[in-house]
């Protein structure tokens, strides 16, 4: 464990009197390596370790009863601090429906999350509606409808002559109208997975945003994402200025370093954690749990 490695690295220090940049170097390498093993972004891991070093140089770590454990606690506290607080509040609109736009890369878990979010609001006594704005993926509309039916939530989709209308912006607009007409107080718009380097698709989702002025935009990220997490988050944030991040597939054993990378670089809160395939597998984001996970 990191704690044991740090104990070992610091043992040689006892009796040396004080901590210097030189004798702390091995411990800092161990910390940086643990972060990289956990998929924290290379630059973020470097900056983070430098901050830890500042703290250690300013503290009397060597004379602690257990220097390794104290060092781990310093790292843990810093992780918790940088992961932000537990806060899953969504901005509700004064004029219903509150419009929530879901975006992210292919396969990250958006459609499933849209269903979960609808389920979450239904459980709180609200009347959500889902909108099927993914017109590309085979059977995407069927998928959303199947999930929605399982929790008895209405879905807005647009077909003409048996074909899905190939106009996500129009679908989003019409969905807002339908939600208003049906007195639904929340509209959750599911969109197609897209690459941050696909200009046409990024423009499309920015157009959807302009067309319906969402009250909340959530960026859905697979928790097992590696070094590329920052690239995608930065680009989506540039185009959409999203309000929050959702981390999915946290029921696996991925360390989830992408959480720290994204939170540090785009400075947007992580609002939800998806922890399974079923629609009830949704929890708020807990920074302490995430910090523990990243530390391994």
């Amino acid at each position: 464990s990191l704690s044991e490695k740090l104990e070992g690295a610091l043992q040689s220090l006892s009796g040396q009197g004080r901590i210097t940049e030189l004798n702390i170097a091995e411990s800092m390498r161990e910390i940086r390596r643990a972060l990289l093993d956990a998929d924290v972004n290379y630059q973020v891991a470097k900056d983070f370790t430098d901050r830890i070093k500042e703290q250690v140089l300013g503290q009397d770590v060597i004379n602690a009863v257990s220097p390794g454990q104290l060092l781990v606690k310093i790292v843990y506290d810093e992780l918790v601090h940088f992961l932000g607080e537990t806060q899953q509040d969504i901005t509700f609109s004064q004029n219903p429906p509150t419009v929530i736009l879901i975006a992210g890369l292919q396969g990250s878990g958006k459609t499933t999350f849209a269903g979960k979010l609808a389920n979450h609001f239904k459980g709180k006594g609200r009347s959500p509606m889902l909108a099927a704005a993914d017109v590309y993926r085979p059977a995407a509309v069927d998928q959303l409808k199947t999930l929605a039916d399982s929790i008895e939530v209405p879905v807005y989709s647009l077909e003409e002559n048996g074909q899905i209308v190939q106009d996500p912006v129009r679908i989003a607009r019409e969905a807002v109208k339908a939600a208003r007409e049906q007195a639904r107080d929340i509209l959750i718009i599911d969109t197609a997975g897209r690459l941050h380097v696909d200009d046409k698709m990024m423009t499309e989702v920015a157009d959807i945003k302009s067309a319906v002025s969402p009250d909340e935009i959530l960026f859905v990220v697979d928790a097992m994402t590696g070094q590329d997490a920052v690239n995608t988050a930065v680009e989506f944030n540039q185009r959409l200025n999203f309000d929050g991040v959702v981390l999915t597939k946290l029921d696996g054993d991925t360390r989830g370093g992408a959480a720290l990378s994204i939170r540090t670089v785009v400075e947007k809160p992580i609002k939800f954690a998806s922890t399974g395939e079923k629609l009830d597998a949704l929890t708020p984001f807990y920074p302490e749990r995430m910090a523990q996970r990243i530390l391994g």
Partner: protein
Amino acid sequence: VRGKDSVDEEMLDDLEELLVTSDVGVKTTVDIIRQVEDRVSRDKFVSIDDLNTLIKDEITSLLLSDNPTQPIDFDAPLPNSPHVIMVVGVNGVGKTTTIGKLASRYKAAGKSVMLGAADTFRAAATEQLDIWAERADVPITKQGHGADPAAVAYDTIAAAKSRNIDVVLIDTAGRLHTKGGLMDELTKIKRVMDKQVVGAPHEVLLVLDASTGQNAIRQAQEFTNAVDVTGLVLTKLDGTAKGGIVIGISNEFRIPVKYIGVGEGIEDLQLFDRPRFVGALFG
């Protein structure tokens, strides 16, 4: 000309950064750098180009080249009849889409193909594969939602045998490798296939998303334990992720990368090209 017999620190730092940011992972990066240092002290290098070639060679040597019992080329003669391929992996990596692409390529090479919709769990999974079957113009065996996936796999092979189909592609539900029950289910599906055709599945393709980090190693470990993975497919390489995870995995588990996914369309599949992949790491 006197050759250099050591690489300066700054070069090694740059190499470390390049490899780690490509998701090669710290352990494999350290191994590569060590190998490079050893070779340089033995063989010496004269120019930066020599050094770059040396580095690329070291990385390439970690990527297993393909295996004759699982030919990559779609026109190559198939060693079995039917040749059964099972596609596995965690949720959302691109299994179903990859099957659609593979079906289309085998068909274009003049082989008959059948799909097996053994994901009977996820919402609209069968409908999704159905559309791919239509696009690739190949038959599909499917059952109702909630049916036993092993039964679907079994029936697909039976149908393929009776119709003299050359290639069978079995789609399975995405599953996290940490879920013991689901991994057991996969082992059972494989065992049942062997009952229908001895030796089936002849290939087990593990699909990995190129943007996945070090957790891919855990995936490779558990899926290999459950169903003996024979090949890797690396998807979503049309993004900015480098997919460096396959280097350590290929070397440690002795599994070749067979195909790469480079988009969402039926044509967006390429045979894995080692030198091209390694070259792309250096951008």
